[in-house]
Structure formats: C-alpha cells, structure tokens
C-alpha cells in the first residue's frame, strides 16, 4: 500500500511549487485548481458530453477491430497454413504503417465526419488483436485438438469447444492491448480534425489559452485510460482462465 504514497507526494510537490510560484503558475496551475475546473466542467455537463463521444468512438473502433481480428487470427493461426505464410510479411508491413499518415488517406475516402475516426481506431487495434489471436491459436496444445477430433468434434464445434477456450488468454491479452491503443489513437484523431471529444477539448483549450481546461482534459484522458484498463479486472475475476499464463522473466536467466 505504501508504494501508492508516491501519488499524493507528487501532487503535494506540484501544488507547493505552483502555489509558491517556483514554477510558472500560468503554465502549471496548482493541482487543486485543475480539480476545481474538472468539477466545474462536470457540473456544467460539458465534460460528460465530450467523454461520452470519445468513449463511443474508441469502443466502436475496438469492437469493429475485434470482430475482424479474432476470426482473421483464428483463420491464419490455425487453419490456413499456406495463406499465413503468404500473408505474414504483407500483414507485418501493413501493421507497421504509420497510422497518422494513413489518417490522411482515410480522410480522402471517408471525409471528415465520424467514420474516419472510428476507422483509424479500428485499424490500429486490428493488429495487436490479430497477431495475439494468431499466436494463441497456433500454440494450442496439439493433444487437445487430437482428443477433440477423436471425440468427433469438427469445424465450428472444434473452434468453440477447444480452440477458443485454449487460446482465450492470448486473445484477451490482444483485446487488452487494443483497448489501450484505441484511446491512444482516438485522442490523436480528435486532435487532427474534430469538433468534439476529449482530444478536441484539450487542443481547443490550448488554442484559446484556457490552460485550466486543458489540464482538466489531460487529467480526464489519463483517468479514463486508467479506468478502462482497470475494468479489465472484471472479466479476469469472472473467468480466471483469461489471466495471462506465468510470465517469463527474460532478464534473470
């Protein structure tokens, strides 16, 4: 528990430095001022509005990515060996493409409304989900599959009874990475062209020199990321088999 004392310590130092003008309080307002701003923005409903829009964009992008990525990963990781060999290199190149640059190309096709933002989030989340699923499915213990076949499982029933449960931990790890990525890219997309959402709120506050609002936005983005990652706790509690297997310490060997 004592290790979390560093947060209050950090905030106290910040508050102190700013209150006593040891750092410029215009650029670094005291933490309590930022909290007051957040509370003001909550009570005026402004914050909730932007948070709702941002979360909807991020989660729908993640949802689309998992709808595409998990089946693709199962197909490439377990069923189409030749196809995997053929597509591995192109997919790797595609996954390395810089998402900020792709954003310009996506805008060409989709205009500047909601679709390009959801698309860029989905594109970024697609790769961790696909690659983790591929790894998970290809590492399923062969004797499990042999037993399944021996008991007469075929096709879809083999996937749902054997392959998915056995690779659930890896798929879940991919989804978790995707969740982190979704918020990350979303903020970038909202800064590059939007008129609502948390990323826009931060950029717009900076352009209008409302630094308290800007810091409030940064704080809310950080908290939203932490809360989203914390929510992962719930499925882990309900289905313990989703927990990552024993982590390998590569440093100590």
């Amino acid at each position, binding site marked *: 528990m*004592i*290790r*979390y004392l*560093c947060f209050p310590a950090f905030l106290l130092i910040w508050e102190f430095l700013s209150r006593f003008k040891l750092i410029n309080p215009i*650029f670094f307002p005291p933490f309590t001022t930022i909290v007051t701003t957040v509370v003001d923005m909550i009570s005026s409903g402004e914050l909730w509005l932007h948070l709702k829009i941002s979360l909807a964009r991020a989660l729908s992008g993640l949802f689309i990515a998992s709808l595409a990525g998990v089946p693709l990963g199962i197909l490439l*990781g*377990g069923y*189409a*060996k030749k196809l995997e*060999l*053929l597509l*591995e*290199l*192109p997919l790797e*190149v595609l996954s*390395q*493409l*810089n*998402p*900020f*640059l792709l954003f*310009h*190309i996506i805008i*060409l096709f989709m205009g500047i409304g909601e679709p390009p933002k959801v698309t860029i989030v989905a594109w970024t989340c697609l790769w*961790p989900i696909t*690659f*983790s699923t*591929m*790894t998970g*499915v*290809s*590492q*399923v*213990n*062969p004797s499990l*599959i*042999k037993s399944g*076949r021996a008991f007469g499982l075929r096709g879809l029933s083999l996937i749902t009874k054997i392959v998915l449960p056995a690779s659930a931990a890896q798929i879940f790890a991919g989804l978790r*990475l995707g969740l*982190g990525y979704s918020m*990350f890219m979303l*903020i*970038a997309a909202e*800064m*590059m062209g939007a008129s609502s959402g948390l*990323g826009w709120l*931060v*950029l717009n506050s*900076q*352009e209008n020199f409302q630094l308290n609002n*800007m810091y409030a*936005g*940064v704080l809310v*983005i*950080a908290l939203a*990321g*932490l809360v989203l990652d914390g929510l992962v706790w719930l499925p882990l509690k309900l289905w313990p088999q989703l927990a990552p297997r024993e982590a390998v310490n*590569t*440093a*100590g060997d």
Partner: protein
Amino acid sequence: MIEQHSTKGELAATPIEAQNLLSGPAVPPSKQQPEPLLRQFMGWYGIIGFLIIWQLAPMLGLCDPLFIPPPTTIGADALSLVSRGDLFIHAATSAQRALLGLVAALAVAIPLAIFLSGWLPRFTRFINPLLSLLASINPFALFPLFILLFGVGELAKFAIIFWSSLFPVLTATINGVGGVNPLLVKTAKSMGASRATIFRKVVIPASLPSLLVGLRMGATTAFLFLIAAEMLAANAGLGWLVHNSAMNNYIPRIYVGVVTIALMGLLLSFLIDRLEAVVLGYKEEVKTN
C-alpha cells in the same frame, strides 16, 4: 503502449505441428515443415501479389485511380522527387529529428534507470507507480503543453520525441536492472568481486536483453511521434511532406511519404535486429515446443 509489436517475436516461433492438426488430415512429417527458403519466398510472393492487385485494381477501374493511384504512378512521383533531391532532404530531416530525440532519451534514461534501480532500489519501488502513470499518459494529450512551453520550432518537436521515447526505455531498463537474478550477484559477491566489477560483469550483461527491448520500443515510439510532431508544425520532413500533399490534394505524393517512412522504420528495425544478434549472440535460442 507500443508493446504490441513484441507479439511479432512470438509469431516467428509458431509451432507448425499444431497448425497442421487443425487444417486437416495428417501429412507425412517430411511435408509438414516447409523449407525456410520457401517460407521466405512465400512472404515475398505475398508482397508481390499485393502490389499486382494494387496495380491492376485502378487500371481495371475497380477503384478510383485518383484516390488509389497504381504503384507505377507513385514510383514515378518518387523518382521525380529523388532526382530533384527533395525526398532525400525530407528523409534526412526526419531521420535527424527522430535520432536526436531517441539518442537524448537513451542518454538520459539508461544512466538514470541504472542509478535508480542499482543504488536506490527502495526509492525506485516507491516512485515506480508514478513512473508508470506518467508513461501511460497519452503524449498527444500533452502536445498542446509542449507547444505552450517550447513554441512551434525544433525544440518542441525534440521535446515531444524525447518525452515519448524516454518512458519505454526507462521502464525497460529499470525492470532489467531490477530483475537481475540475485543468485548471479551473490555468486559474484562470494567470489570477492567488487561493486564495480559486479556491475560491469554481471548486472550490465544480465540486463542487456531488457535494454534492447527498451531501445526497440523507444525507436518505434520516436518514429511514431516524429510524424505526429511534423504534422503539427514544420516546413520540412516526411510528416510535413504527407501533410502538405494532403492539403494540396496531391495524392500520389501522400503515398510516397507513407512508403518512405515505412521503409525507414523497417530499416531501423533491421539495424536493431542486427545489433541484437551481435550483442546477444551468446544466447542460444530455446525451443519450448
């Protein structure tokens, strides 16, 4: 957040056996494992096939050649840029920015992390949650702050790249130095090694793998944020080239920029691979399956 790319390493170690069990009736073992050479060629066939489809689709009118120009058009534009020397200027500007930020981040993070976890392990455990919080703050959310503090010149771009690649390196090095097997340290100590010797002969070699992971993650991050920073405000660099071409609706040049940056990223990752092979040559690959 850039950790996703580490999954690729695991992909290489795909157990082929399991896949064939799924994909159908048993095949004689001699045919199960394709030659490594074929494996490589298959990947290249994939790339070539992709390029052919890309070339044919606009030519046959399956998609609008204005929005998806065929690779030959893009190549022609790239050639004209190269012959005027423009592409080289932009690529060199971008590479310089990315490397400067990355090298500065390495120069700060590695000594700091070694100092923190080697000399102040209790303090490091104390501030570790704070470091991971700072690392998880979206650097984009901090962009406006960097612009306020450093203006829109080179300094702001440097600060953005430095900040965003600092944390992956710092975290990986702290984990590496903190995770050195105590048995190794104790063994060296019992043989009478001094503190400096232990550091040089045990701690550094044992934490090299994590250091390299940090280097790779830092390099990826530096490239990612370089482009973002150049789009905010610049008058040269590949990010600016793409942004400017998009604003002027000169579409083939967008693709030239995208491909050049991808190639630079691949080159960097290849160089780090080579470095890894040289530095970690003593480590034999362990087959787990």
